[in-house]
């Protein structure tokens, strides 16, 4: 069966080339997207969790107040806290990104940045707000929690999108196999008449579709590696785990095989 099987597989892939290409692209984009998104989001969440063990509370002082005095009172109340005074210039640099020209040096007050274990953040915030020298208090906890929730949601959405793309691939395979089977109806009838079993008839469709899935998965792996390489200057993603690669190839192969199984479930019948 080998030679005939492979030749028929090649013929089928040639006959379906346009749609087969679209199917492979769907799977490749879906797989690469899933791998990169999962890797990026997990990396981001791990970073956030690491950062969230310590909370940074920034207190902006009223004009003319002395940051050193505030640092001293914080140190006496919270021995574990580490505080840094931010000069108006440093504050200006930090804010320049979004405050623009208005944040010019000299117009800004001084500020103190205090890092404490997350458990003391609440108390520190209240303490700072009670100080007359402090004008505004801002805690990193205010955005860590929503950010974590956002990451979880994004991770789920990315997974959903990837699943949809894999399903779309499977559906396209069903369609392509169905069209091929219908256009081969006369040959299928002849194959039966000269003694072919049902599995002899189905095998090429199954092999071609599984191959398409594995090739699509492999293209996805290639695309993911390319994506990581291109993103590297901006985002230093950790190396993509090999289990992702295996999973993508497996998902592609299984989606292809299932698609072909559905597509060939009813072959043209004889009386």
């Amino acid at each position: 069966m080998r030679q005939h099987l492979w030749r028929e597989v090649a013929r089928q892939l040639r006959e379906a080339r346009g749609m087969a290409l679209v199917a492979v692209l769907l799977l490749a984009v879906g797989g690469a997207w899933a791998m990169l998104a999962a890797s990026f989001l997990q990396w981001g969440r791990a970073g956030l969790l690491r950062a969230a063990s310590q909370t940074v509370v920034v207190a902006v002082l009223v004009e003319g107040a002395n940051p050193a005095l505030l640092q001293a009172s914080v140190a006496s109340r919270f021995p574990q806290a580490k505080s840094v005074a931010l000069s108006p210039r440093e504050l200006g640099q930090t804010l320049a990104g979004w405050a623009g020209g208005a944040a010019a040096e000299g117009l800004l007050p001084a500020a103190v940045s205090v890092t404490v274990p997350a458990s003391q953040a609440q108390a520190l915030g209240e303490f700072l707000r009670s100080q007359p020298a402090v004008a505004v208090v801002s805690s990193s906890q205010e955005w860590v929690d929503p950010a974590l929730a956002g990451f979880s949601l994004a991770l789920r959405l990315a997974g959903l999108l990837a699943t949809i793309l894999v399903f779309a691939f499977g559906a396209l395979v069903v369609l392509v196999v169905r069209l091929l089977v219908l256009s081969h109806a006369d040959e299928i009838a002849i194959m039966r008449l000269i003694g072919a079993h049902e599995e002899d008839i189905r095998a090429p469709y199954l092999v071609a579709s599984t191959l398409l899935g594995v090739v699509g998965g492999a293209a996805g792996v290639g695309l993911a590696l390319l994506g990581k390489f291109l993103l590297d200057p901006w985002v230093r993603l950790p190396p993509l785990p090999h289990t992702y690669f295996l999973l993508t190839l497996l998902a592609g192969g299984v989606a292809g095989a299932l698609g072909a199984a559905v597509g060939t479930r009813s072959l043209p019948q004889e009386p």
Partner: protein
Amino acid sequence: MLHCRSVLAKGLGELGRERVRARLTAMIRLESVTKTYRGRPALVGISAVVEKGEFVFLTGPSGAGKSTLLRLLYRAEVPDAGRVVVAGQDLSALNRREVAELRRRMGVVFQDFKLLRRRTVGENITFVLDLLGLPEREQQRRAYHALRQVGLQHRLSAFPEELSGGEQQRVAVARALVVQPELILADEPTGNLDPERSHELMAFFREANYRGTTVVVATHDVSLIAAHPARTLVLERGRLVQDQWGSP
């Protein structure tokens, strides 16, 4: 030369008949077989036995039911009444898998050839050998020999539609002969051939018959039967009207 060959084959056919007579058993048994197409009877109460190793012509005018009878024998159709037994198996009792197994042991030459249009001539032949599980080299070797026999070894990589009707018919014959079947069912196998090719083809069937293959040839060409006398079943409007030796 050609004549000589066909005379020889005929002689061998007689000899072969003698050799198998000792172990005669039915290859085909038809018991009151009736087949109707939408109320119009195509075959009516056909009963006949073809022994193993026999050579039988099936003749009659167009529309008499020759093809229908052959279709019953390779179970492309099932009878409305009666029984069709081939190689000891009641065809209506077979499941799909058993039908395929039975067909692998037959060589059928279809009236409309039924070549696989997406496959080359060579692949059309090796396909049936592949179903039998023969190794690749053996498939190639046998396919080449079968095509050389019908004079088409140079068209091995052509596609069926690139061949003339007669050439396609010879490929169909090669495909039937190549599996060295127990039973050959040929429906108008000389329909598109010139007389010389027709007689050559009959010689191949005779040779196969000598080696023990049962052969059933459906034809409305009485001159073919006259040139190769054998047992002849005559159908007329779905009825078996004569069972005789030689042309009607």
